[in-house]
């Protein structure tokens, strides 16, 4: 049934992780309602906003990593984790 979408294990895991993140953050939002705060970017962000900034930023980190051939791709994910930590801590 999924033949027409040409799934691969890698992309399946990729989307599963994103779907999982969305699910976790939805549950978190229900259990602990989000309160907006103003961080270093001087904009109001909620937990969901920070997830969005993290995901979008991670995409660009991966592309830059790949384009400049910094090193093996999986290491870019470590940079993304650091970035995610920074976003959730200070933005």
């Amino acid at each position: 049934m999924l033949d027409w979408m040409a799934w691969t294990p890698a992309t399946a895991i990729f989307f599963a992780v994103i779907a999982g993140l969305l699910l976790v953050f939805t549950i978190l939002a229900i259990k602990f309602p989000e309160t907006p705060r103003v961080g270093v970017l001087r904009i109001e962000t909620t937990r969901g906003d920070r997830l969005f900034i993290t995901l979008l930023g991670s995409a660009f980190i991966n592309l830059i990593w790949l384009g400049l051939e910094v090193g093996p791709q999986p290491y870019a994910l470590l940079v993304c984790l650091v970035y995610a930590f920074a976003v959730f801590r200070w933005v």
Partner: protein
Amino acid sequence: MNKTVNQKAWFLVLPVLVLVAFSAVIPLMTVVNYSVQDTFGNNVFFPAGLEWFRDTLQSDRMWASLGRQIMFSAIILAIEVPLGIFVALNMPKKGAWVSVCLVLMSLPLLIPWNVVGTIWQIFGRVDIGLFGYLMAQLGIDYNYTQDALDAWFTLVIMDVWHWTSLVALLAYAGLQSIPDAYYQAAKIDQASRWKVFRYIELPKMQGVLLIAILLRFMDSFMIYTEPFVVTGGGPGSATNFLSIDLVKVALGQMDLGPAAAYSIMYFLVVLLISWVFYTVMTNIDKRGGA
């Protein structure tokens, strides 16, 4: 007033969710799947890893198209926004001419993109087009099919003709919402015309202008039909914008994998810029409302 909590309303959103899933989410997921594979058709795929992303990121052709795209958006924003404000400032505020102006202004907005392209394609031709003929009569060597600068000139003029009205109408709506009391106060203070514009009209138009800039930026950044009809990306690759280049990769060369990687990067850039615009807009609203 106390709102009653009723989460059942979420079920009413389900039809939209299904619709969006089939029109956007599933195609997007498929594109992501294509981007890491190679295919020669027949639904047979071979894993390609991150090759297409690497190729696209290191392709001069893509960067050149991106550069042209940014330059095109910058040029048309630099022309259309000031021109639109200027037109809006000079439109009548009341009377019968208001309707005449509004109808005339909305006419270009009602014409489909491909028709606009065809109109300008013929209009600009030196042999049968009025504009091209006029240029030839004036002794100006103008030919948008041969000269890169002329092609750019035609595309920019065409976009200005098509979309300045939108900026003007939005700015006009912003201007109409300013109460007379502001102008009366300015008159009492003997404010000059420039100061009235700078400290009354411009701040009051800020909200609509941001929307105008966002709309014009997104539209011009994703422009396809008009340049495709008028120049088809030529002469050479002088007007090969991102979307035109992408379609050449996807349909001209049938390279679905590279095209998918290309589209994802294009999408990410559009997403990033939209988010920045949206954030700026909502934050200005909040500060203005506070």
